[in-house]
């Protein structure tokens, strides 16, 4: 049985694979891939991805703090680190969001 951390990482890698196929990004997406310097993210790309992750897990996570820390420390973020962050902030076992979200 896969650990929750492994499921999260696989989910993130799958999402990034889907996204990068729209960018003509040739290299494979790996756990070590860096969002900004390798995958070419801008700040808003990170914000949108984080929002999508929260929607998927139906759990608010302190992504604003994470992005603030990254800015202050002037560092990058790997997919592996992002998986750690999500795993750390999922209080209960991960449950993917059902497709029946509200009809806004």
């Amino acid at each position: 049985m896969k650990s929750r951390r492994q499921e999260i990482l696989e989910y993130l890698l799958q999402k990034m694979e889907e996204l990068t196929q729209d960018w003509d990004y040739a290299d494979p997406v790996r756990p070590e891939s860096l969002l900004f310097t390798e995958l070419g993210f801008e700040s808003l790309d990170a914000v949108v991805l984080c929002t999508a992750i929260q929607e998927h897990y139906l759990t608010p996570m302190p992504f604003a703090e994470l992005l603030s820390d990254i800015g202050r420390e002037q560092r990058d973020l790997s997919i592996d680190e992002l998986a750690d962050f999500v795993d750390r902030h999922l209080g209960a076992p991960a449950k993917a969001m059902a497709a029946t979200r509200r009809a806004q």
Partner: protein
Amino acid sequence: MSVKTLLIGLDGATFSVLDPLMEQGAMPFLKSFFAQGTRAGLRTIVPPLTPPAWTSLMTGRRPGQHGVFDFFRMDSPESRHIRFFNSNDVQCDTTWSLASAGGLRTTTLNFPAMFPPPRISGYVVPGWVPWKQLRLACWPEGLFEKLKAIPGFNQRELAMDIKLEEKATEGISDHAAELGPWIDLHARREQNLTHVLKHLTEEDPSDLTSVLFDGVDKLQHLCWRYLRPEDDKPLTEDWEFQLRELSLRYFRCLDVLLKQLCDMAGPQADVIIASDHGFGPTYDVLHINTWLERHGYLAWSEAAQSRDTQGALLGVGQVAKHTWLMDWNKTKAFATTPTSNGIYIVVSDGTTPGVPASEYQAFRQRLVDDLRQIKDLQTGQQMVTEIYTREEAFPGPHSSVAPDLTLILRDGGLVSILPSPDEVSKRPVVSGSHRPVGVFGARGPGIKRGFAAGELSILDVAPTVLYSLGLPVPAELEGRVPEEIYLDGVVKEKPVRRAAAAAGSQAMEQAAVSTEVEDEETVLERLRELGYIE
């Protein structure tokens, strides 16, 4: 099915630009549109800013009621962390959700506060989503693949490129070299949006079809000098005249697209054109955090004084730079974003630094009095002409995360939040900035021809769209259906129906769906917080 109502958003459109263009023959279709329909000024909300203003247009509610105040939002009233706005911040029904609940289909392209996409009946391509993430943002599932299959579809030029967006707010230093391709890109972007909308409508039309063209706002920010040279010194250089021609070409292109969309909707559809705010020239920059620092309200951190604050790595720090630029042991008031002209006051909870709650009112009044003293050093004119308190600007259940003060500058300009040698400075060339009155136009079988309706409210647009669709107007909407724009007998034959308050249907549905993953007590607590149960 055919299109009943076509809503065309022109971000930031203003008659001070459109009227001369129509008179000069650059926008013949728009001129005929107004001649065959009704026009009015459209007064927006405070602040006159894209996210809260479009949300007010979509909901018929003010920001204190709908919950969107800026591009960014405090995580909580106590937090200093901000995050980018999204659709979950919209705490009331939208025109799209009401249409969907009324059994109608809607297609909406490029409107803000639509990501994550609402699960409406129809299609959603949200605005303010970077092009690399567009796949994540479309609704329903499979729509993105459908878009990719459209011949000529260009993802990069349909969605947002944040580097280009930053140019609209931070400026382009070399107009001669950079501005021309940037203008042309926006023309192509509007063409892409139109192409996608026409394709979706031909294949699967929606009752309510909506698109937002936001190049109007972008061009007016950076190209005001070329669109309205009379507001600054005359154009003299060849490249300046070329940029004016390119700017006019954008609007000529837009005019063609407006015609294509109206032709697509057909003569039996109501077509509504609206902007979220107006536009005008701006010459000043108020470096608000520098002013606050020099008047004892704010203290910069050591990091702010030792680092290059203009270029944080990778742009990530731009989102939340204030959290490390300021010394939070000494800061009592600060601005977080350069977009809303909002000032937040740090209130102490008794254990944290800041203004004691008991002194909040007196502190805020002293700050207001001091802000009113900011003067133009050359003319002595007052720089801050209006100051709204949170209660004045944002009454409603969501005001706790709104700025404590919102400033209106004398030329409608925006503040800078970064450290600066000056408290007030002049822009090197005139720019465009937001104004409170935008544009409204409507054309349709029951709408008066060649009628000038004076000034309407942006809050009137949602009721007007619902009326056009034959839907009731919920009682909680703060605007009205402007009955004066309709031909005699139309409203008598088809009266405006008011519906009872919707009892927070959107939030209730949101809470109900969440029961799949939250325990009952959590949901009850959320409903208590929302005020639905005691």
